[in-house]
């Protein structure tokens, strides 16, 4: 038990004791603002109370419906739209989290002020509080709209997708005539037991890995090579070359891929016609899996190198020429300078971007799908010869109307990509500790 303060204390409310913070916090936990009122902060208490009442009055029906909806996903076909209810439920949960945030803040505040009072000091007046809020809370206040937008445009869709993976949402369980139900993990289990998926998974997965590694590595190497080349002192018309080499990046890839698909056509495409003029037989670009894969890789090199080049050029220009001069004094060859100065510094600076490039190509559905729809077909499997995981899953789920499987596969793939990226990022951090750059 703390001792009572002396009577001469200027505090007109001689309550303080050790249990004040606890009592205040508990009161605030019971009804928002009650603890503040107990702390004699009438205005603050009142505002918290109003916030609570307003929240409950405005959102009660919505929360009621949403929570009921997300648990049951509807009980009557035609009247209840399971997918709408699911969305509403998720929004309700987000609102509740927001509400709980304010609620927690309110309890913490009551406890903190209680402590101040227990120490026998005067709690801040309404004016002081306001000043504190405007001073310290201003940045939060400014960030708030952005945060709310972020929650609803990024977090909400992700939660929605994750939720779908645990339902039976497909053609035969589609509102309004049917209801959707929660099914737990059975999608993940059924999916891998299905004949259709098993027979193609290994071949698709291995091609996806090859595709990701080769396309990203080569496009980066090519970009680096060209950047180094252009950065040489002896090269003239630097700006011209740089502009020309950036062009593939400037044209929307959507357009260039479609144009490539025409260029590579086996019978009527200009590429084969040119080969024919040289007396070579045409290459079955679109009909043989191996050649289609080669064509795709070539296209991706072409599409991807300008970005790497731009990136590397930036890094190269920031490397101090002292390093090279010192190396020259030591009698280093051009290769040694590249190997020991340029490459480590460029890789150090671009590693994070390089990792995102790997992740991007792992999911690069555009080029695969627009070029040849993942074809040519391969006997005995549901995936085409050039299908990567994402394009194959896209085809299967939308043809088969299995939205739940689509969600489940997306989760698995994101976990995979996130895992690999995370591992890589951590490795680069280890790299950083070698203290290459001050």
């Amino acid at each position: 038990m703390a001792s009572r303060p002396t009577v001469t204390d200027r505090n007109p409310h001689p309550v303080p004791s050790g249990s004040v913070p606890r009592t205040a916090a508990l009161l605030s936990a019971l009804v928002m603002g009650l603890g503040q009122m107990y702390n004699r902060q009438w205005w603050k208490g009142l505002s918290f109370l109003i916030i609570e009442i307003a929240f409950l009055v405005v959102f009660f029906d919505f929360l009621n419906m949403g929570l009921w909806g997300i648990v049951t996903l509807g009980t009557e076909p035609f009247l209840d739209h399971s997918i709408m209810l699911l969305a509403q439920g998720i929004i309700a949960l987000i609102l509740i989290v927001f509400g709980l945030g304010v609620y927690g803040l309110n309890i913490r505040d009551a406890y903190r002020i209680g402590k101040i009072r227990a120490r026998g000091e005067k709690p801040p007046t309404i004016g002081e509080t306001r000043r504190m809020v405007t001073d310290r809370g201003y940045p939060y206040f400014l960030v708030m709209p952005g945060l709310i937008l972020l929650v609803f445009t990024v977090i909400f869709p992700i939660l929605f997708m994750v939720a779908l993976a645990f339902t039976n949402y497909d053609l035969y369980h589609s509102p309004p005539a049917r209801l959707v139900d929660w099914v737990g993990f059975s999608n993940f289990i059924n999916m891998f037991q299905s004949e259709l998926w098993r027979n193609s998974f290994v071949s698709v997965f291995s091609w996806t890995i090859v595709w990701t590694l080769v396309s990203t590595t080569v496009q980066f190497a090519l970009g680096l090579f060209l950047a180094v080349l252009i950065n040489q002192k002896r090269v003239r018309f630097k700006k011209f070359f740089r502009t020309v080499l950036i062009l593939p990046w400037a044209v929307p890839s959507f357009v260039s891929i479609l144009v490539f698909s025409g260029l590579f056509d086996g019978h009527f495409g200009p590429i084969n016609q040119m080969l024919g003029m040289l007396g070579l037989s045409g290459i079955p670009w679109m009909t043989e899996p191996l050649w289609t894969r080669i064509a795709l890789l070539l296209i991706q090199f072409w599409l991807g190198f300008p970005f790497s080049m731009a990136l590397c050029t930036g890094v190269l220009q920031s490397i101090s020429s002292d390093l090279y001069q010192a190396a020259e004094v030591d009698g280093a060859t051009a290769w040694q300078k590249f190997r020991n100065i340029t490459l480590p510094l460029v890789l150090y600076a671009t590693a994070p971007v390089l990792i995102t490039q790997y992740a991007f190509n792992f999911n690069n559905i555009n080029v695969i799908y627009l070029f040849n729809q993942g074809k040519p077909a391969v006997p005995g499997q549901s995936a085409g010869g050039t299908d990567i995981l994402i394009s194959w899953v896209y085809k299967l789920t939308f043809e088969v109307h299995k939205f739940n499987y689509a969600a489940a596969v997306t989760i698995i793939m994101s976990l995979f990509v996130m895992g690999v990226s995370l591992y890589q990022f951590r490795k680069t951090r280890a790299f950083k500790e070698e203290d290459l750059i001050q």
Partner: protein
Amino acid sequence: MKWRIWGSIAMIFLLTVGVLAGCGPQRDADPDKKEAGKEEKPEQLVIWENKEARHLKHTERMAEKYEEKTGIQVKVVGVDILKQQEKLTLDGPNNKGADVVTWPHDRIGEAAIKGLIQPIDVEEDRIHAYNKSALRAMQYDGKLYGLPRNTESIALIYNKDRMKEPPKTFEELIRFAEENTDPAKEKYGFLYEGENFYHDFFVFHAFGGYVFKDEGGRMNTEDIGLNNEGSIQAMETIGSWYKDQLIPRGLKADTVNGLFKEGKVAAVLNGPWAVKDYEDAGIDVGVSPIPPINGKDPKTFIGVKGLYVSAYTRNEYWATDLVRFLTGKEALQDRFKTTGEIPSRTDLLEHPIVKDDEQVNGFAEQAASGVPMPNVPEMSQVWDPMADAVSFVAKGEQTPKEALDGAVKQIKEKLQTQKQ
């Protein structure tokens, strides 16, 4: 101390969720479903028409006529024909949907399963006014879900400068192709997009193949006839065209169109949608039904655009009446004049406006005898495996039997996954 507070907060939260989840919406015993007095005239009906100027023009004109006739105002809203289903799913429950909607018939099955449209009642004698194939397209699971407006089919489109008369039989067409094809000079007698089952179906049908067994208006999706004796024969026939290098493998629709517009092909298979493009390229275009193959009239896959009554309508009776009016003789004749689409009514198919136009009649005759693409959602699993099967045979990777057995196996696996 702290964890106890947070523990109690969590408890309160869980209890609230539990209590609220138990509550849910308050519902009366009988929600406001359709009332008994259904013949009572509504003030207004809403119809979603394809968002294209010609289509809207026709429907708006007919809407005025309908108002004169019945006093019911018809509001015509333009919604892309392929987006109506999705829109109805969202707008229907909020009473913002339409009473009458339209989309290609092969999406009827999906809509019926989702409960977006409802079966309609039409008198027996009225039904006979429609072309049989088109009417069959409107049936799903033995029930009639709408009335047909227009039927589309592919037919033989030929370059009159390169082919004087359409051949009498398909075998004759192939002989013509053999004499007039020289890939080295980019000259072709006959081309079509063979690696697309939509274009191949008539061959399968002529030899006795079928997709799903049609059991009196109901598709038996367990019974797939794409690797039976007839289908294998059909595949052998198609394969021989590739083997004899009449048709290059990997041929795409764009390439067929391009070559035809350059005058390098004498005849192609394509639909009415391609004709204008061909004529604009300066080709003297002729259209005729596909000549008999294997001694039988070829039956192509047809696509039918129909009108359906939304399941959300409050005026079932009058919505059906509007569907009847818009698929009547007067309306479809006007539609033909405005949009050039081939009507699905027998009286109009025999009418001089159709009969006397050589091009239109070519497509119309083909369409009248066609087989509707199955409108069950299971059909979407058929296209790719069948197209791939033709590719394998064209490349010589597999025999027709191997390719078809493989395709059917894959279709079955896909169907199993779909229904899992």
